[in-house]
């Protein structure tokens, strides 16, 4: 036996000690969940952990001063969030998309019910909350979004199926401008797009229409199906049915749109990821974006002068204008500083930041009392404000399933549709393929949620 083995730390013991230390290091984050790190010593400032997109330093300092606590801002990353939730060590406040995130997280008991806080608040009164905040509600008994406890709140919102258009391009094409009050039919909308597209040698020089709601192709089809009088999801939200006459009509519309190649679609996605750069470069006649898009347009006087806002088109006889985003914040069920999180809610959604946001045109304020602050100082802002006000009564929550993430269902669409468009597969066959793949996913999720 070599002499070294006689030392106090032989090779086997060294390996065993290393394994123990490594295991401890790997499991420590999990144990940290039971340690309240924020409200340590008496007199020390509380620290609120916020998972969000980056904040300007000035805004962070202002918030810390107003709230009397430190803000630890972690950059939003879905993989990190999942790891933190799974490790029982979540942030105190998380940025989220109300329309698509709530059912999935709430059904898994990961979100804190904020009803008690709302009931006791003088700043965020339920009676003052815009209807779009209902996308943050989820009823665990009926498994329905839109009713039940509130699990978060939108910082602002838009009715995402409305659209913006360029008057100069309409005039150049000799076409009549869409009405400010009467919605177009989806077929007429598509036809306008086809008439305004400009091509050269296989390339689209000017897109006629960019039809794509914020939630991806799934929400697009959901909205159109609802407008035709149907529902993509079954009553219990455990299955989809693309084969119903209404859903099939919506699917046919989308396939026709993608095949006609008049704007970004699952076949030819927009390289910029959103409409503004193309719209600003005079290469897009109609952009299917809600009121928030006016915030960017308003920043460019030349483009604002030739831009107008229009109501959401209709596929059938139902006028429906949903919100597929409602970006805001939620508090995880296992957050360590819920009271501090609520103080942040009151400051951010009801205080100075909310009032400042309301004046920018980057979305409709989530408090009705702030709506009067929306910009109306230019003809552009006045027109978009009036169109938006008339659209509000047509808002409704289109619930998504708690059994699968909207992203997962969108992945199915982006896998199936491009081939279908290229091969000219009949809509009925495409619907069958979508039903089969999506229902398999939903069934797996249902088994887990119970």
């Amino acid at each position: 036996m070599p002499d070294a083995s006689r030392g106090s730390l032989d090779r086997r013991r060294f390996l065993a000690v290393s394994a123990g230390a490594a295991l401890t290091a790997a499991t420590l984050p999990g144990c940290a969940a039971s340690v309240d790190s924020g409200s340590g010593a008496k007199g020390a400032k509380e620290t609120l952990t916020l998972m969000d997109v980056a904040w300007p330093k000035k805004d962070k300092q202002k918030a810390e001063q107003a709230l009397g606590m430190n803000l630890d801002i972690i950059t939003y990353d879905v993989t990190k969030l999942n790891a933190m939730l799974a490790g029982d060590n979540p942030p105190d406040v998380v940025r989220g998309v109300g329309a698509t995130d709530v059912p999935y997280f709430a059904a898994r008991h990961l979100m804190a019910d904020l009803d008690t806080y709302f009931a006791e608040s003088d700043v965020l009164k339920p009676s003052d909350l815009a209807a779009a905040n209902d996308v943050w509600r989820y009823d665990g008994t009926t498994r329905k979004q839109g009713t039940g406890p509130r699990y978060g709140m939108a910082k602002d919102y838009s009715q995402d199926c409305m659209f913006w258009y360029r008057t100069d391009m309409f005039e150049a094409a000799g076409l009549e401008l869409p009405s400010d009050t009467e919605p177009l039919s989806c077929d007429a909308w598509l036809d306008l797009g086809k008439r305004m597209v400009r091509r050269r040698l296989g390339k689209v020089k000017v897109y006629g229409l960019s039809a794509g709601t914020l939630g991806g192709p799934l929400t697009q089809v959901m909205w159109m199906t609802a407008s035709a009088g149907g529902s993509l999801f079954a009553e219990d939200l455990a299955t989809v049915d693309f084969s119903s006459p209404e859903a099939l009509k919506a699917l046919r519309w989308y396939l026709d749109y993608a095949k006609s190649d008049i704007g970004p679609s699952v076949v030819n996605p927009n390289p910029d990821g959103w409409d503004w750069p193309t719209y600003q470069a005079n290469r897009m006649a109609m952009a299917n974006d809600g009121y928030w898009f006016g915030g960017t347009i308003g920043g460019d006087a030349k483009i604002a002068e030739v831009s107008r806002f229009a109501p959401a088109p209709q596929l059938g006889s139902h006028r429906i204008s949903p919100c597929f985003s409602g970006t805001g914040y939620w508090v995880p069920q296992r957050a360590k500083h819920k009271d501090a999180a609520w103080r942040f809610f009151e400051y951010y959604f009801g205080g100075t930041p909310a009032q400042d946001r309301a004046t920018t045109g980057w979305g409709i304020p989530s408090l009705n009392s702030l709506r009067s602050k929306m910009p109306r100082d230019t003809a552009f802002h006045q027109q978009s404000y009036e169109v938006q006000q008339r659209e509000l009564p047509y808002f409704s929550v289109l619930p998504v399933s708690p059994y699968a993430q909207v992203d997962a269902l969108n992945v199915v669409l982006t896998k199936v549709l491009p081939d279908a468009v290229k091969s000219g597969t009949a809509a009925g066959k495409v619907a069958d393929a979508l039903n089969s793949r999506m229902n398999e996913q939903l069934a797996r999720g249902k088994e887990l949620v119970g």
Partner: protein
Amino acid sequence: MSTDQLAGPDARSPMRAATGRTGSPRTRRIRSLRARRTGAFYVFAGPWLLGFLAMTVFPLGYALWLSFTNSDGLSPNARFVGLANYREVLTDPDALASLGRTGLFTVITVPLTIVAGLLLAVLLNQPIRARGVFRTLIYLPAVVPPVGSALVFKLIFDRDSGSANGLLDIFGVNGLSWLADPYARYVLISLTVWGCGNVMIISLAGLQDIPAELLDAARVDGASWWQSFTRITLPLLSPVLFFQLITQIIATLQSFLPLLISIDPTPKGVGAVPESNQLIMIDVFTQYFSNGRYGYASAMLWVLFAFVMAVTFLVFKLSRGVVFYSVDPEPTQTKPRTIGDS
């Protein structure tokens, strides 16, 4: 008084008695040197070993456990499903197709990258003017972060406003949807080969290590450039090339580049990756973070791990006889040679 006490401390430990605590000063010095060496080994190996256990062994074990469940990472109702996930991976047409695409992608890009890097290294090993500038320029793409290169490629190959179609436009040729199927795979291959600077720099180091006398002797003996290259340079460079082959294969099998040249290079954008670029890691990522199938995705990773191991083993087996080491990699003589040994 016991016999142990009478016999002294060494009597209780036959080993200690055998080696002797009190040896000659020379023995003590050797022992002290060995103890110091052992200590140094533990000090240097310790941090790595801790990291390896915490960041590799523990996650691997955790993923192995997950692979036998139907966990979505968040729901409390996950249950043990045995080998069901593995059965699904090995029968799922999507998973098998992405594994096949990954294999094909590796078979195409690894040789291309190595050949391109070697050719550049041979060129830049010539006594030409501004050789340093050329070496820097060619190595530069390997230094640029993949995100940056991917962004540039996206701008070049955009269907409606990219310069690739702009060039075709000049000649009156119809533009192509480079970033969509079926052309997206060519853009991906170009992007991968574009980073051959790494191979070039390592090959260059290998080339400079080849004794000039050997090449001079070959020239004196009348060997052509090609003969010198194939019979002297390549054999002497073979360990370097083999090292690159192995590391490139492993890296390419785990490539994540398709996401970077997709429309939305974030976890949410995995769905937008064209089918021809749906490599296994993209599929794994989709299963984890879009579909929330932690169990199934973990099984996919273990299958990929087995695949990587099998391919590496196969390459090692096939390399026998074509890789020449100037020093025997597995020396039979274990006794260290010291100055003065004949």
